[in-house]
């Protein structure tokens, strides 16, 4: 792996995000949707209703953010380059497929995790400042905070490789985005089931899920690299 080439792709991608209104919009709107529901819940539950919150892990509901935001970014990564005609010049350079994909993955990972942590921090601050004290205590619990910190990057990584894999095969960026979000739904479903205590949030479950996510992410990287066929992407001959 040549880190200068990875860094070149990473920096280029971030610059493109900065200039692309659609990407900024996608990065802003999805987290806001997932911020609204728990905020409304936190502000509307009376102090004596906080007992029900103790039985749920509502904070984990926000783990959908690191799943969906990078999925949207990663889905554009390869097919977007192909559509705008920039893939061929990039592939004409000495870059290896895994360097290109790693650079793109990193560029989707960093802003997604920053946004996810940022929104989460915003939520915590809002609850601490404006919700009833009982509600804040019931919502903000150490294990949930830890789970949020640890699972945010793990979920984002898996989501990114799924998005990139979809992007290498798709012929249209919008279809890629839809398929990528669709492919991320099972992960969102699992986090939601844990949030609403359907799947018990125990240490064993957390460890198991963490290992599964690590393994799937590693496999996802290999799978996406294997799907990245330079010849097919350039000639569009299947």
């Amino acid at each position, binding site marked *: 792996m040549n880190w200068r080439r990875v860094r*070149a792709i990473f920096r*280029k991608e971030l610059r*493109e995000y900065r200039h692309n209104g659609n990407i900024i919009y996608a990065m802003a709107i999805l987290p806001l949707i997932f911020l609204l529901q728990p905020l409304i819940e936190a502000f509307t539950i009376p102090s004596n209703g906080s007992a029900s919150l103790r039985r749920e892990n509502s904070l984990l509901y926000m783990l959908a953010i690191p799943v969906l935001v990078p999925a949207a970014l990663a889905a554009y990564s390869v097919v977007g380059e192909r559509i705008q*005609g*920039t893939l*061929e*010049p990039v592939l*004409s350079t000495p870059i290896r497929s895994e360097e290109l994909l790693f650079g793109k993955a990193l560029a989707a990972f960093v802003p997604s995790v920053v946004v996810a942590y940022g929104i989460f921090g915003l939520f915590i601050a809002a609850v601490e400042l404006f919700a009833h004290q009982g509600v804040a205590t019931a919502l903000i619990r150490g294990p949930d905070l830890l789970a949020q910190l640890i699972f945010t990057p793990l979920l984002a990584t898996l989501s990114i490789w799924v998005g990139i894999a979809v992007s290498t095969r798709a012929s249209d960026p919008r279809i890629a985005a839809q398929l990528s979000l669709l492919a991320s739904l099972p992960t969102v479903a699992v986090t939601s089931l844990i949030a609403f205590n359907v799947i018990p949030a125990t240490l064993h479950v957390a460890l198991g899920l963490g290992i599964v996510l690590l393994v799937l992410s590693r496999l996802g990287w290999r799978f996406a690299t294997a799907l990245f066929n330079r*010849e097919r992407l350039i*000639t569009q001959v299947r």
Partner: protein
Amino acid sequence: MSGESAAGAQTGSHALALSVHGLSKHFGERIAFEDVSFEIEYGEVFGLLGPNGAGKTTTVRTLGTLIAPTSGSAEVAGIPLKAENGVEIRRRIAIMPESPGLYLRLSVAENLRCFADLYEVPDPEDRIDRALHAVKLADRADDACGTLSKGLRQRVALARALLSDPKVLFLDEPTSGLDPAAARDVHDLIDEMRQRGVTIILTTHRLWEAERLCDRVGILSTTLRTVGRPDELRDRLFAKTLTVKTLAPLADPDHVFAGIPTLDSWRPDGETGYVLAVSNTQAAAPAVTRALVAVGADVLSLAESVHTLEDVYLETIDHNQEMDNQ
């Protein structure tokens, strides 16, 4: 951006920048190009001509390791064309595709910086500055590529191709879609690169462009039909002729043309015209003038037939289509 590195790749006076032997590429049943063989020396400008769908771009992409050949072998910048050598080959070459393929939201300098890093060029800022000066775009470095005209984008793409000081530069239809002034700018840049000793493989539809820029050309139409210098191809395909026009018909043309050196044959062209097939026009033309003056003929014109590369191209393509149809 000096030509030193290009020249540095030479290992002798006849070092080959490109050596292609029986190269073919099929996409399933469809043949993109078949059994293509040619060689290019360092410092040459080689034109790859051919109609649409002839396989020119696929040939360039294959030699640039973007797609794998179906069969045959090649050496690109001294390295065997194999999948495992892809990175090493791409380090030594640059490809400018037909579409500039720039990041339109990024500035010119940001585009070049990205590619300078991908090529791992030392001192990238200096290299970018020199590349921009070479294409006369130093004052547009901070402009977003999306705001540039097509001609300027093409120049940025050329600057990008120059960043790595390539030993072999592939230019795929570099003036496609450009207006005459922008095309002339690109021609001037190619001329400058030639003077610096860069080996250039140029695909084009514009035959006059190839005639002006290329040392040798190859005409590709799935198979490589012919390769040579434009004047060699003309000589190979067309007999040299002198066309004479007189005020009145000659009384005895056989007698007049009898002693003309290198004359192969002659035929009338209208009442007062004569077409003389000769093997050396420089030896024959003065003798024809003297013979006509000696018999008192009033000469209106004496001209050497001129065949362009376009004539060669059309003759080659037409001839091969006839052969294919038989």
